[in-house]
Structure formats: C-alpha cells, structure tokens
C-alpha cells in the first residue's frame, strides 16, 4: 500500500475547492417554503410578545402553546429524516426556512429555543443515538410533545465546558448521575435533557459521556426560570441530578464519547443557532429604512443624513455577510464536509453583527428606540446573549486562530 501525502496546496486553491459548486439561489420549492414560514411567523408568533418579554417565561406566558404551533407547522422536523417523521429537507433549505421564521417572528427567544431544539438536541440524538433511541425520542421532539434541553454547562465551567463536575457512576445496569447544571436553555420546562457527565473522572475531558435524562426520572429536578437581560420569552435555568439512575440504554454514544458529541454538536449549533436571527436582522433593517425615510428633522428625512445612511449601509452589509456565512456553513454540511472553522466564523460574526445592528437601530430610532413600546430595544437585549452562549466571541476567535493553516 502506498501512503498518500498531503501536497502543499495554496490556501487560496483549497478555499476555491471548498466552494466549488456552491449556489444559494433558492429553488421554487425553497421560495414557497420560506414564504409559508414567514407568513406563519407573522400571523401566529408575535401576539403577546411584549407581555412575554415583560413577565418572563413562566408557563403562564404561553410559550408552550407557540411551541406546539411551531411543531404543527413542521419547524422541528424540517431537516429530520422522513423515517423518523421529519420532512427530510437539506440543511440549506432548513436554515432558509428558519431565517424566514426570524424575518416574520419578533420573538427572538422563541426562535432561539426552536433552533436549540433542532441543532443541540435533535441533531446529536440523530448522529449518536441507537435506532431505538431515535424512534423513542425524535418523533416527540418534532411533534411538540417533548421539549429538549442541552445539559452541558455548569456554574464553574463556562467556556471550559469539559471540566465539568457532574459524575455518572456505572451501577445496576445503568448509571447514577450526580451534579448540577446551569444556564440551560429550556431547562426549567424540559421533558428530556441531554446531560453530559464524567464516567471516568481520571480521564478528564476524555472521560465524559452523554445521557438522555427524562423529566420523570427520580432524582432529576428542573430549576426555576432565571430572570435575564433578554430572550425572556423562553426559560433558562439549572438542572439538578441527585442519585439519578438512568438505564444503560439511555447513554448516548459510547462511553467516553462525550467530548466528540460535544464537538460535533457545537459544530451544528454554532453554525446554525442564529439562522432565525439573520432573518431578524433583515426585518430590523426594513424597519430602520422605513423609519429613516419617514422621520424628518430639520425639514428632511433623517436617512438623508450621512451618519444615518452610513449606519443603514453597515446594517445591510451585516445582513449579507451573516447570510453568506450561514449559507456556506449549511452547504458544507450538506456536502458532508468538515466545518469547524466555518461554524466558529458564523457564530462569531452573526452574533456580533446582530448586537451591533441592534445598537444602530436604537440610535436610528432615538428616544423611540430606547423605549420598550416598539420593541426596538428588545433586540439589543436579546442580541447580547448571543455574544456569550454557544461559546463566547473570545472563544470563537481562539478557535478560528487555531484552525488557520
């Protein structure tokens, strides 16, 4: 056998090779799906948003009803194989539809929750689950019966996620889990949690395994929703595991595969968690353009002031660059190619772009943007969380730098 050796190909050539055949022109089917998704979002998901934002994500806020409507529309199953009840769309088609949802739905918390369920719960189960696990959980996750949570983070871990302290000790044909998770999106109301715990503490990050914990398991407690700056319309909180026994067949993937499951899941999550936020940025731009044309000061529309038009231009640029990074990451996934670098770039750029454009929107709307009535300031509060979750901007920069050739 002759071993192949890597030839010293120029970076530009490798980049060109990685982009060959890439086209983002939507097909008729994609256009129809996006139009339908946007219309659904505009007509169904915005009612009562101000109240949900004001009062937080208790059950009385009604997010679960909206969740069910999203499930009925088919959002959770967009890219799920048909054999498990999904629509079997490509990743690119899926994120186009999710972007359209964000274009129509101003509830950034809800759209984040939807994306989290798809990319951080369904995807790892599909990638690492046994057929029995997929048949048990995937249908419920896409038809709205189950809300999933990604139970990784702990109070002291943060960016150093794999230094977790939660343990899973093999016992009686299963595992006994002990530990506490924090900052878990949808955690307070989840029906199913993907929990990462150390099965071999001596192995550090390489001794972590993943488990599917059900809300009814003895010793599993869901915390109260935390009050937070933004994304208030869906719950975030802790999970506690106290001698919580789960059977062997609820371990996801092999023993010690937790690190790989985490990396694999983060590649999906960082690539696409902001799919709907790109739509939100486009909607935000539409609102700013319309306002800049109509709002007059000193006898002229404010959009004629270069300071305002420059902001609009930057906002448009952020929408386009965010969309391109998002679509390219999706295209790579559909081609079955690795995309760790593209995932980190998408996560970093889109989150920073949404925060910057949200602040620009407040500046353009002035006092009206600062008040809560129009929801302009809500985007800024919602966007701030994106700079932190799924790996902070600083961590994404580290990853990008490390993955440079």
């Amino acid at each position: 056998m002759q071993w192949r050796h890597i030839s010293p190909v120029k970076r530009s050539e490798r980049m060109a090779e990685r982009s060959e055949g890439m086209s983002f022109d939507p097909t008729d089917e994609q256009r129809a799906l996006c139009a339908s998704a946007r219309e659904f979002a505009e007509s169904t998901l915005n009612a009562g948003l101000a109240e949900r934002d004001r009062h937080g994500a208790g059950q009385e806020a009604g997010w679960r009803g909206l969740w069910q409507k999203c499930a009925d529309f088919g959002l959770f199953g967009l890219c799920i194989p048909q054999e498990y009840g999904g629509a079997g769309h490509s990743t690119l088609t899926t994120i186009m539809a999710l972007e359209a949802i964000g274009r129509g739905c101003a509830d950034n918390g809800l759209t984040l929750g939807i994306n989290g369920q798809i990319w951080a719960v369904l995807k790892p189960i599909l990638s690492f689950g046994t057929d029995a696990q997929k048949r048990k959980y995937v249908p419920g996750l896409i038809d709205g019966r189950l809300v999933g949570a990604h139970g990784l983070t702990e109070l002291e871990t943060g960016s150093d996620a794999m230094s977790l302290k939660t343990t899973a000790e093999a016992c009686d044909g299963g595992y006994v889990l002990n530990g506490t998770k924090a900052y878990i999106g949808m955690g307070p109301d989840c029906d199913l949690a993907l929990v990462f715990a150390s099965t071999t503490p001596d192995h550090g990050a390489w001794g972590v395994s993943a488990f599917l914990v059900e809300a009814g398991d003895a010793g599993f407690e869901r915390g109260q929703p935390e009050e937070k700056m933004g994304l208030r319309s869906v719950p975030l909180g802790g999970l506690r595991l106290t001698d919580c026994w789960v059977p062997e067949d609820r371990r996801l993937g092999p023993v010690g595969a937790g690190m790989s499951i985490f990396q694999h899941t983060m590649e999906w999550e960082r690539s696409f968690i902001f799919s709907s936020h790109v739509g939100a940025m486009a909607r935000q731009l539409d609102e700013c353009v319309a306002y800049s044309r109509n709002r007059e000061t000193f006898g002229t529309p404010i959009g004629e002031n270069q300071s305002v038009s420059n902001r609009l231009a930057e906002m448009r640029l952020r929408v386009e660059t965010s969309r391109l990074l998002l679509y390219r990451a999706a295209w790579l996934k559909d081609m079955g190619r690795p995309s760790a670098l593209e995932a980190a770039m998408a996560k970093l750029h889109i989150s920073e772009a949404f925060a910057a454009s949200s602040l620009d929107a407040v500046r353009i709307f002035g006092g009206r943007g600062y008040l809560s009535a129009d929801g302009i300031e809500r985007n800024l509060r919602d966007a701030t969380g994106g700079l932190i979750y799924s790996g902070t901007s600083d961590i994404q920069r580290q990853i990008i730098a490390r993955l440079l050739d």
Partner: protein
Amino acid sequence: MTKTDNAQARAAIRAYLASSPLAGHEFQDSDELLLSGLLDSLSVMRLVAFLEMEFGITIPPEDITVTNLASIDAMAAYLAREKV
C-alpha cells in the same frame, strides 16, 4: 493491514505529530497524548482530519475516544481494526 503497512502508518502519524502539534516534544509510540494534555481538543480535531485524509477513511464521531486515539499505538490499532 500488513505489518509493513502498520509500520508505515505509524511513521506517517509520527511525522504529522512531530511537524505540528508536538513540534519540539520528544515522544514514543506508546506515549499517552490525550490524557496527558499534549493534544487538546482542537489538536485532536486536526489529527482526525489528518488521519481521514492520509488514510482515505472516514472516522465517525463516536470513534473519537481515548481508546482509539490515546497514543500512536492506539491509532495504529484502530487503523488495523478499520482494515486500512
């Protein structure tokens, strides 16, 4: 995988590690690379990409464990099991 192929595989992995993530380090085929912290998670990601390209295989994510990647010995054994 024949004995000769396995030796070639070890040599290729050794050359890759010596050229990049472990440049400047002395290491043996039996040395523990993951648990010792010599390779962090991003280094392992790049190592997996190298193994896939070098040996023309796809390493599924569930195979990225300490059992299969702990050392050059472990990687060679994994490649042999995968009948590279």
